[in-house]
């Protein structure tokens, strides 16, 4: 785990890697506010995600973390604020249009296609890379067959990497929880995202499964170069994995910085340990 070692060094001080990795912002949220009726879920939140980094979003339950991901992936349209994606202001898009721009995500509660095989689930992630028309697919000739084989090759690469070869033809409904989480990651990766959003990728997992998942996340970030934003409750994992952390509480951003800065931030400590709000 050479990589984990460099990560540790990075977290402990001014590693050259930190500056190497950090590119231009791939996504910026500016003054985002979102409310449902009278309930404000997100209040005036701004932060950015830099190209190539792992950005964690943490906070107590109900802090608005998932709402932030839903805003990024197009499920919710914020009442105020704007989103800048790869240097240009993003208009309000439908979720499938967001996917076409290279943003993929996983869900807190698994959102796989239960009736389909693992392979079909992963292949569905390639949807934006398949262009063949209805006629070609109906006859299974020419482009349709060629694309099927090419994309299958790509998906097999991901299946190998996530170590789920043995279940590729199994129906997802028959899989245990930990494997489902892995399949969901595989499906998101299959779309070759530029920005990958992970909503609690390690919730409910055993220690071994968490370690595997950490390994996969680091590998994806390091080798494939995918920018990752993740929500996670396991502080050990967050501090080890992430380059920078956003902390939210009651819909507001209360902290933003490297894991070390966050660890020593009084507002964050208060939010987690609980103090009387005045």
């Amino acid at each position: 785990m050479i990589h984990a070692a460099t990560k540790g060094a990075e977290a402990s001080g001014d590693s050259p890697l930190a500056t190497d990795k950090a590119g231009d912002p791939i996504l910026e949220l500016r003054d985002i506010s979102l409310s449902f009726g009278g309930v404000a879920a997100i209040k005036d939140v701004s932060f950015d995600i830099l190209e190539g980094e792992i950005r964690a979003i943490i906070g107590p339950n109900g802090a608005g973390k998932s709402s932030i991901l839903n805003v990024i992936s197009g499920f919710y349209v914020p009442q105020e604020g704007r989103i800048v994606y790869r240097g240009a202001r993003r208009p309000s898009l439908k979720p499938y249009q967001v996917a076409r721009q290279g943003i993929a995500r996983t869900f807190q509660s698994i959102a796989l296609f239960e009736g389909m095989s693992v392979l079909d689930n992963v292949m569905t992630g390639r949807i934006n890379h398949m262009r063949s028309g209805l006629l070609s697919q109906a006859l299974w000739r020419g482009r349709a067959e060629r694309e099927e084989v090419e994309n299958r090759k790509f998906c097999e690469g991901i299946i190998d990497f996530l170590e789920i070869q043995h279940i590729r033809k199994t129906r997802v409904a028959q899989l245990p929880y930990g494997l489902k989480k892995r399949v969901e990651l595989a499906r998101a990766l299959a779309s070759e995202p530029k920005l990958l959003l992970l909503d609690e990728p390690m919730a409910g997992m055993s220690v071994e499964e968490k370690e595997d998942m950490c390994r996969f996340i680091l590998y994806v970030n390091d080798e494939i170069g995918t920018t990752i934003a993740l929500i996670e409750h396991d502080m050990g994992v967050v501090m080890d994995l992430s380059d920078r952390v956003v902390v939210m509480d009651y819909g507001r951003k209360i902290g933003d910085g490297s894991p070390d800065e966050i660890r020593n931030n009084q507002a964050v400590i208060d939010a987690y340990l609980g103090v009387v709000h005045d």
Partner: protein
Amino acid sequence: MFYREAGDIKTSYVDDGQTFPIRLDRQLYFSALIVAWGVIPFLVDDYWANAVLLPFLIYAIAAIGLNILVGYCGQVSLGTGGFMAVGAYAVYKLMTAMPEVNILIHVFLAGGITALVGVLFGLPSLRIKGFYLAVATLAAQFFLVWLFNRVPWFYNYSASGQITAPERTIFGVVVTGANSETWATYLVCLFFVTLAALIARNLTRGAIGRQWMAIRDMDIAAEIIGVNPLSAKLGAFAVSSFFIGVSGALFFAVYLGAVEVGEVFGINKSFLVLFMIIIGGLGSILGSFAGAAFLVLLPVLLKNVLVGGLNWPTDLAAHLEFMIVGALIVIFLVAEPHGIAQLWRLAKEKLRLWPFPH
């Protein structure tokens, strides 16, 4: 022992993705094709064709069509009868307007017209799902039947209000009308069934099929991965209605010859085809065939046993037939909710291990 994938090693993704990966399945499939195309046409007589084979083949097309919509894409439809009527009236208008064009082309065109109508009535699926969508398609059923009853242009102002198929030939052989050759009508239906099954299989194993199933299993996740729900759902409505339209066209032109719309394409037809795919197996091409066979053959079989075998009066047998078919459907669905296709899958799983228990 003999039903194994072991030793049948796939070395390319094309091989691995084929429809029947196991050798015995392939052999079964090809022998079925050979029997259907090469043997039955020489043996078929009027009784078998009209009581069993033609309805089975035509309902199989409709069931494949409905299965694409309900079983693969998860959009419930009760408009099958109405869409079959669109196919029937489209082919009737085409046959009478352009008598010189080949009937096969007319059937394809009728399918295309039904696809357009299907897309139109599929529009509500973008906003509503489940039972509500079923009710919306029910509106299609009643509206279309009403339309074909009330607008004389559709039945060419005939006095009876019926449509009657004029005589048409393919390669000089009569396939529609009173003088049609039985074996030829069988082959026409077989041609369309084979085509429908192949196309449905190819669509459902590829990118489009995965989009449909993604919408069915979890529409939110499908959208987040990049599936456009509009095109996926309307595509399913179009393809499904195409097949249902073709089956309606054949039902009228090749099988019945004359049709009164309310009687033939009423709500009962919608339910019949829906039962076929539920009993056969949702989301399975084989299930569409099995369901069609089950609901076509069972009444014929019961009639033969009760009237022919036990010498019961015909009217008593007819009533009992309803009760027995109904009871069998209930029993069957309690015993195996996923249909005949699932039974077949389980049997194959067992066979794969046989004679060993594990």
